[in-house]
């Protein structure tokens, strides 16, 4: 199998998967329950999610391991099972992906702040290292460090992946739109800060996830492309903003609405498009259709 980077270099536009967290909730995950524990408790349900994205036409799927670092798992007394949980997560997604689609091991933030002295850089690095190695052992061929807001934490994660695995490394951050239309993470990192720092740390692909729908993602990709025309760019957009209806949180952007922005996102320079919170296999199916038309 070619690497994602090789496929992109050969001119391919690729489609990633949609939401995992909101999907798990639909399948019965309770607030306050550890999502990653389901890899051991209910692997069949997790496999169902992975399979539904493969069936929708995703070229790559993530793993149910976003909060699978020692810091987050320790809130559930699972800090001794980091490797095992991540290995299981990757094994499930690999089972759905087979040998010709990519498995992206998901690595989210720890929730600890370096600048406040909560943790040291070395502690973060070690935590990400264990997680990354577990994901690779379970069959991930790429690792996606995602929803990052702090450059140093993202650097620790990307370096831990680069130094200790042979996976491709992707890093995406979550940006908010400022009143003047520019984008920053809550820690003040701009897309222009992200690109050189993550390339230097060893990332092969960079981008943005969560926090925004497709429309805002266009502005973020523009900012990235303004300083780097070459680096492969991945976008995981939300299905719009969350809306609370009848005791339930829903994301209202329909598959058609999301798909409508897809060509613009591609024109801006995105190479891989997928979804984050609220996107379903139906959204992905629609995006796959649009991307196919764009490729022909």
């Amino acid at each position, binding site marked *: 199998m070619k690497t994602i980077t090789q496929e992109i270099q050969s001119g391919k536009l690729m489609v990633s998967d949609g939401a995992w*967290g*909101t999907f798990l*909730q639909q399948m019965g*995950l*309770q*607030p*306050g329950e550890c999502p990653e524990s389901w890899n051991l408790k209910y692997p069949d349900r997790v496999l169902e999610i992975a399979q539904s994205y493969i069936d929708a036409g995703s070229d790559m799927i993530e793993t149910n391991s976003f909060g699978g670092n020692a810091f987050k798992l320790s*809130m559930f007394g699972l800090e001794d099972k980091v490797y095992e949980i991540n290995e299981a997560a990757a094994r499930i997604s690999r089972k759905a992906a087979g040998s010709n689609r990519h498995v992206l091991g998901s690595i989210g933030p720890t*929730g600890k*702040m370096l*600048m*406040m002295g909560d943790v040291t850089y070395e502690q973060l690095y070690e935590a990400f290292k264990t997680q990354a190695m577990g994901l690779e052992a379970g069959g991930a061929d790429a690792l996606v460090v995602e929803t990052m*807001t702090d450059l140093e934490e993202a650097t620790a994660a990307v370096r831990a992946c680069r130094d200790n695995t042979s996976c491709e490394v992707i890093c995406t951050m979550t940006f*908010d739109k*400022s*009143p003047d239309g520019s984008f*920053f*993470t*809550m*820690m*003040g990192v701009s897309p222009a800060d992200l690109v050189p720092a993550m390339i230097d740390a060893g990332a092969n692909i960079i981008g943005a996830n969560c926090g925004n729908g497709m429309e805002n993602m266009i502005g973020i990709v523009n900012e990235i492309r303004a300083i780097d025309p070459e680096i492969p760019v991945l976008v995981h957009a939300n299905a719009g903003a*969350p809306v*609370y209806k009848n*005791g*339930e*949180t829903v994301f209202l952007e329909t598959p058609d609405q999301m798909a409508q922005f897809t060509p613009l996102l591609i024109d801006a320079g995105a190479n891989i498009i997928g979804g984050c*919170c609220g996107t379903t296999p139906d959204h992905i199916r629609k995006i796959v259709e649009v991307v196919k038309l764009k490729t022909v």
Partner: protein
Amino acid sequence: MGQNELLQKLAECVEFGKVNKTAPYPPAMKGQDGADELTRQALEMGIKPSEILNDALIFAMDKVGEKFSQKKIFVPQMLISAKAMNTAMEHLKPYFQSGEVKRKGKFIIGTVSGDLHDIGKNLVAMIVEGAGWEVIDLGVDVDAGKFKTAIGENPDAVVGLSALLTTTMPNMQKIVGEIKAQYPNVKLIIGGAPVNDEFRSEIGADGYSPDPQSAVAYLNALVA
């Protein structure tokens, strides 16, 4: 250095996050006295603790909150300012305890049950404290029972509820309902990435704060 100049310098330390003399941040103020030293000097000089609080600390944190809500500064700058303010507050503690300096009121805050995220909640707590309120922080994963116990102990307090996850919004609704059933007059304000004013009105909370500064504005209006 005169009194006004000292208070102005102290305010700058808080605004730009100069904790003490040895603190490396911000680089532009390297080697200068920080909030720690200047607060001690102010008290030694005989400046009233209430003046230090109002004219330097609250004044500076107000600017910080304002800049944050305009996205001119971000979380790191806000945290370092809050750290400088807390350092100054340590020197004022005896005066709060003796009753010589009064706070504006009490604010109970917590992240709702099922939600373990504390960054946003902590930011609000720091800025509200910096605005002159006593903050009672119940932490994360706080259920209705814990909120009600705290209200029972502090019946005049205003209560803030935080949620980051869309999945814990229903818990927020439940907790607001339970608190209001027992304490209909307690003011409840909500915040967090997925909530908005529409949600606030749907669940019967009193205020919605998109950022820490608006929580302060809401609280201050209650005691104005």
